[in-house]
């Protein structure tokens, strides 16, 4: 078998193992609940009968491993069970129905951010590496260090005050529903996307710069310099191709980070995505919804990390033959 394929399959197997462990943790955390879930939800005054009835209604009276495999089997088919919010009432809402439209919104926001953030970060990274230690580099460096240290909600509110309230260019709240036209959706998602961009560009740009500068000390760059090639050409033709591995890895990590940043930003701008849904579900302790959201976040995160890993190996053949 080709060594690249073998390594890729190996990493994939490891990711599947991690995913299995994560799903066990997500599932069993519910079983670890002190005093049982029913008691926590129904309160101190619940009689044993009501608790038994509640457990039976949710199927919680069967052994844990059976429920685990059932849960996984259903989750694989996109069925995450029913939201607890409807239990006891006449309307039963399935978790998948609750999550699906929101998932689309969240991916919309994440992709919109990535489309702008990745090229911008690469461009700034190359530029700061080219003019390293100059005033441009210093300014960009100080700015990115500061944006990294800021919580997302601070960046979000500052942008909101500036661009939605002082200058009324954008809406301060991103109200969106399925009937919103595409470009209107883009327009309303600008401020959340810019917030996420500021936070992720900082990471990606710094790592790109570091990866390129790391390479500038190597002999082949010195050779190129001695041949009299211009600094810009050296970076674009000789340094960048060798830096792709670490750069792409960082991009994948940053996109994985987007998944987390999205939670806070969605709450600030009341953007109807999966992050906001999860926070609401945590507040009302709607565990199936929380589990479904966590699983989706975890899968996205693990898959992006897997991609980063595989690309890192492919672009650096030395990793194929570990000592």
């Amino acid at each position, binding site marked *: 078998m080709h060594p690249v394929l073998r390594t890729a399959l190996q990493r994939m197997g490891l990711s599947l193992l991690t995913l299995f462990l994560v799903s066990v943790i997500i599932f069993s955390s519910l079983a670890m609940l002190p005093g049982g879930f029913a008691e926590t939800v129904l309160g101190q005054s619940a009689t044993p009968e009501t608790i038994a009835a509640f457990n039976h209604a949710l199927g919680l009276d069967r052994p844990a491993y059976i429920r685990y495999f059932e849960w996984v089997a259903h989750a694989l088919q996109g069925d995450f069970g029913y939201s607890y919010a409807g239990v006891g009432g006449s309307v039963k809402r399935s978790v998948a129905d609750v999550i699906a439209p929101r998932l689309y919104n969240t991916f919309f926001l994440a992709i919109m951010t990535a489309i702008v953030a990745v090229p911008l970060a690469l461009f700034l990274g190359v530029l700061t590496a080219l003019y390293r230690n100059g005033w441009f580099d210093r300014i960009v460096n100080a700015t990115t260090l500061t944006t990294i240290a800021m919580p997302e909600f601070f960046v979000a509110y500052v942008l909101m005050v500036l661009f939605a309230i002082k200058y009324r260019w954008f809406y301060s709240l991103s109200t969106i529903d399925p009937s919103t036209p595409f470009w209107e959706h883009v327009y309303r998602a600008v401020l959340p996307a810019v917030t996420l961009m500021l936070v992720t560009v900082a990471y990606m740009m710094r790592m790109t710069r570091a990866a390129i500068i790391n390479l500038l000390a190597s002999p082949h760059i010195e050779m190129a310099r001695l041949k009299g090639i211009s600094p810009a050409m050296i970076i674009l033709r000789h340094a960048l191709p060798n830096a792709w591995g670490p750069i792409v890895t960082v991009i994948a990590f940053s996109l994985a980070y987007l998944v987390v940043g999205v939670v806070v930003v969605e709450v600030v701008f009341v953007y109807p995505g999966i992050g906001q849904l999860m926070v609401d579900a*945590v507040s009302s302790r709607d565990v199936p919804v929380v589990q479904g959201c966590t699983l989706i976040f975890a899968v996205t995160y693990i898959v992006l990390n897997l991609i980063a890993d595989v690309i890192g190996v492919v672009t650096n053949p030395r990793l194929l033959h570990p000592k």
Partner: protein
Amino acid sequence: MTAGHPKSPRARRGRFAAVRRELSKAPLSAWFAMIVIAIYAFCAIFAPLIAPHGEAEIVGKGYMPGGWHADFLLGTDQIGRDIFSRLIYGARNTIGVALVATIISFFIGIAVGVLAALNRGWFDQVMSRIADALLAMPALIFALMLLAIFGKGMLNLIVILALLDATRVFRLSRAAAMNVVVMDFVEAARLRGEGTGWIVFKEIIPNILAPLVTEFGLRFCFVFLTISALSFLGVGIQPPTADWGSMVAENKSLITYGNLTPLYAAGAIVLLTVAVNFLVDWLLYRTSGLRDEQ
């Protein structure tokens, strides 16, 4: 860093003189960081003495404007509590919770990490796989899930964040300890018949402390930002306890009227994280500079 001083008799100087010498060489950003951190620590420790009003005391009408000549420097919040006092108490609560969680995570992480490095085998395997699985999920998402299950509350918050963060400390201390356990002096201690406790505390931990100290600063920032985010989302530190994250959330409706009150608390968070980052930056630069000299 390396150019300024040749091999001077620095080692013979007292510890106090060495510290003073380091400080005199500290860059402006490090001084700024130390001053900011000192002010925050002062506010946190002496909060009841500095704050003009009580933490949850209702002292006026809601949303009263502030100013130098007004009764309330920064105005009042939505139910008439003094924002300036709550900011000062917030230093105590927010930083306190983050600090306690970070310290617990370091105790657990270092203990388990060093033990795993000492006894490679099933213990190391099990712990490493658990840490890998916990690290495979974003901390904020995991914390949200655990808070949904165990319920909100200060104690749950501290325990959950400490355990989640301990996995990262575990990774680092295990890797650092791994390089130390193979050293001759550890072997010698073993042959001398020293117990595990001696080897861990007298041989290994002193030798892995340097990277862990700077890591402490970074982990603190991370925990602090996570707590602020969780509180902002309404599932972290609960009212009426004053806390910067929830103060932003409580007053966020003011933003739409162009009132900047919610940004005070957010600014307090930013200033502290920036300061800690500057300090860590300087410490890292210093330790790496010293390493170059050898």
